[in-house]
């Protein structure tokens, strides 16, 4: 009764073995590839230069030839931490502006899932970064953690304002040059018109120029040098 026909079962067993083997292989390979991909997703932000500088200052290595590690003054370390906080503020602003756009694009399916993953990872890293900065600040000066980001925020905003103002100031010289040229051109043109007008009026009385105020002005005051000034004064 219990005499199992092993030979007859061989085929189905082999079939099952092959089937599970395939599944297992597929799933491990697939998962490994997926993990590899997500680990290799490009980070949202480039390298954090300010953070690298700050940490490099804390880990200064002795110069070649000398054994002593150079001593970095605390004031420099504080300045470097503040620079790091300023860069964090810039990144937070970027994340906040990107968030709404990103999520709506994701909902519409316009962007892939990996972009969203990259974004979420950046957000999480940013949180850790902020916590780290606050801790470092409190370690350097007690109580600084509460205000470092306020200061950093103003530094970032002031930078934006000053850059914009500098950009506008930079146009000043070229604008002036342009205006000098333009004024010279207007002046010569005006002189020419005046000359034409005086020629015309000397040959025949002007009848057609009644609808052109500039020419009328010119004919009424034939003294040429006062022409442009008058025109300017009129405005």
């Amino acid at each position, binding site marked *: 009764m219990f005499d199992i026909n092993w030979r007859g079962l061989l085929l189905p067993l082999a079939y099952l073995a092959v089937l599970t083997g395939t599944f297992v292989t597929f799933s491990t390979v697939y998962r490994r590839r997926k993990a590899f991909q997500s680990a290799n997703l490009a980070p949202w932000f480039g390298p954090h230069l300010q953070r690298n500088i700050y940490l490099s200052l804390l880990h200064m290595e002795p110069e070649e030839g000398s054994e002593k590690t150079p001593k970095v003054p605390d004031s420099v370390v504080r300045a470097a931490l503040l620079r790091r906080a300023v860069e964090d503020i810039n990144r937070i602003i970027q994340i906040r502006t990107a968030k709404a756009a990103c999520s709506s694009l994701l909902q519409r399916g316009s962007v892939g899932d990996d972009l969203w993953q990259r974004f979420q990872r950046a957000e999480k890293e940013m949180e850790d970064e902020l916590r780290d900065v606050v801790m470092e600040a409190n370690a350097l000066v007690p109580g600084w953690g509460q205000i470092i980001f306020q200061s950093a925020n103003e530094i970032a905003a002031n930078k934006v304002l000053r850059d914009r103002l500098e950009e506008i100031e930079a146009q000043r010289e070229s604008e002036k040059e342009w205006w000098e040229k333009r004024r010279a051109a207007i002046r010569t043109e005006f002189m020419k018109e005046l000359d034409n007008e005086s020629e015309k009026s000397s040959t025949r009385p002007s009848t057609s120029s009644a609808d052109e105020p500039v020419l009328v002005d010119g004919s009424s005051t034939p003294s040429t040098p006062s022409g442009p000034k008058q025109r300017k004064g009129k*405005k």
Partner: protein
Amino acid sequence: MSDQDHFTLIPLAIDPESTAICPAHPSHVSRALQAELEALNNLHTALKALDAPLPVPPPPMPVNPKRSGQITKAREAGNGEYRKQKYDGAIKLYNLGLSLALARPPWEPSQLVREEVHALYSNRAQAHMQMGNWPDAAVDAEASVAAKSQGNAKAWFRRGKCLLEMGRLQEAKGAVAKALEFEGEEKELAELLREIDARIAKEGASA
């Protein structure tokens, strides 16, 4: 920023006298690093000049009233000169106020800087306009609206007016149209727009 536990060590050196940070191997340094180190050293110098109980910048508010007072004084003196029609003197005083306002330490409230700077630029634009100095006035007015674009109808008006005087009708029209977006229906601006449109129509007819 790959991982919170790792960082890239940047070879840096410190100048023992000035305590300025500089790259250890100055021969091959990226421009970003150079700019960042310069910003760091500037901030460090600014921090050293700090006069506060703690060695770090105080919270943005409240502001030290000394500088604000100086700036207001410079602006009011400038306005006085302007009323006496001494436009040169007025411009000099506005320059003084501007340099004071822009020399505020970077951690002081940027909103305050905007308030101060926009008034000074706008007044200086007006003084330049009185002297027929259109390009300077146009640049000042643009700076003023860049510092504060809302509730700054005067500066918008001056910008449009200067561009109109220089014969840049399309630009003037663009500026005034933008101004109307920010300011709503300001009477003077609407009038200026009509004036510009009339000029454009005339130029179009004569061309």
